[in-house]
């Protein structure tokens, strides 16, 4: 929740780095693993909660 003005104002202030030309293998891996794992855990938890309701 706590993303507030200070962070809103400053978070991207120092975002740096060169623009990539594409999504690298490491990028694909980190994206799929990160997004996949949080989605899988969320769905699994929801399923467990609903099943035990």
């Amino acid at each position, binding site marked *: 929740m706590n*993303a507030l003005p*200070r*962070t809103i104002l400053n978070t991207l202030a120092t975002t740096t780095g060169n623009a990539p030309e594409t999504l690298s293998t490491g990028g694909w891996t*980190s994206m799929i693993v990160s997004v996949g794992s949080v989605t899988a855990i969320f769905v699994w938890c929801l399923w*467990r909660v609903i099943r035990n309701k």
Partner: protein
Amino acid sequence: MGAILAVASSAVGLGNFLRFPGLAAKYGGGSFMIAYFVSLLLIGAPVAWAEWTMGRYGGRLGFHSSPGIFHTLLRRPWAKYLGVLGLAVPLVVSMYYMCVESWCLGYACMALSGGLDGVADFPKLFAAFTGATGDGDAVRFSPDKAGFFLIIALVINLFLLHRGISRGIEMACRVGMPLLIAIAVAILVRVLSLGTPDASKPGQNVLAALGFMWNPGELSTSLANPQLWLAAAGQVFFSLSVGMGIIITYASYLRRTDDVTLSSVTAVAANSFCEVALGGMITVPAAFLFLGAAGVAGGTFSLGFMVLPSVFTSMPAGMLFATGFFVLLFLAAVTSSISILQPVLAFLEEAFQLRRRTSIAWLAVLVIIGSSWATYFSGGLKAIDTMDFWVGNVSVFMLGTLVIVLFGWLVGIDKSWSEMHRGALLRVPGGFRLVMRYVTPLYLTTIFVLFLLREMLGWNFSLTTPRFEPKHYMTDLFGENSNPVAQLTVAFIAFVLLSCIALVAAGGRRWRNKPLPPHLRHSGLQKKHHRTTPPQ
């Protein structure tokens, strides 16, 4: 399910869609995610388990606020004062959060009415709208000023609170959360299907945008950077709504044998899903697609209120998506703010035996005073910034650390662990006993000290050539360049804190002799700590 929804709704807020993507892009998505998951395991989940457990335990004894629950956990005269932060933090946070909520509502209305279309200078629009141009500039009854939308946001919040927990808060979360996710998915599909929006800039395509967000960079170098770990831990901690007294309050409405372990993980997972799978795939990639790396990097002002509106104006059917995006932010903010206010209401009701309507009236007065303060002293957004730092960051860290120390040490890990697993639908691996007793308190304290050294004293994180350049949170308060608004705001926060201490002292007198329900007189934690029950 209601408690899970309420906690998840309070956690999912602007940080998921604005702060997380910014940090992940800054530190290289892959590297940041390693630190993020480690922090989630060592800080996020343990503190959340502790809060859920304590809340449910206090609820069995008829307490629903942190002061009451800490009182009943330890049964010492001073114990209730440990919970003062669980009252003051949500109260002050709600005061300035309401202002940010009004910005989201205002931008949603502007997008819907076409007011964002054709705007050439979004930073100027943002400054004029929020009153960042000068104190008092936002306080006008006009739809181009935040003050106007603050009134509407306050009315919506108080109305939902007035309807009660199940018909107001739970209903809002039940409708708001799925709607929020649906809107986010719709925007996500749109962003990922944009291809190369400007044919003259072939480098700004979807794959490059995702690369900007997720490419890990040099892993070994990134992971050796302490700021990365500090940022990830801060994101996990602040994003989950732990250390705010919110989870404790909602868990206190559970029954004695209701699960807390799976519920807690579900709420944490919902929050992570929103920030990683939705926020991480939308915000920064969208900004990169239209503005490139420089556009994203160059913003000293907000991603949400300056960069993205500019992106939406360049996008086909952009105003439709802009409306959707700001409605999404507003929904996230409303579900958070009504949850934030519940701990204060619970305290007023249980400490002074006030009816809900009377409690809401008192709460309304307090929140209106605080949010008016934050809206009036809007020059440079100084009041909001000061409140956010001292309460939304520093105090939250303190309360979170206190909760885990209480769980692992003051109450005792064995009793806490056994209480946590009462009715559990998920068996937490035994290794977490050690984590919750030793690792989490140590990790949290380290992060807190580093946070203070960086944000207050401006340490450069070098041990060999340390350099300290006090940041504005210090210089605003002391020295030649002090800022009267920051000083007044800190004095205001201190006044709120002292008032909370006085309220806890007054309300706590009623608890001293409150008898325990018969079934608890010889059970669990009470057996050791309860001093007022006469021996049987």
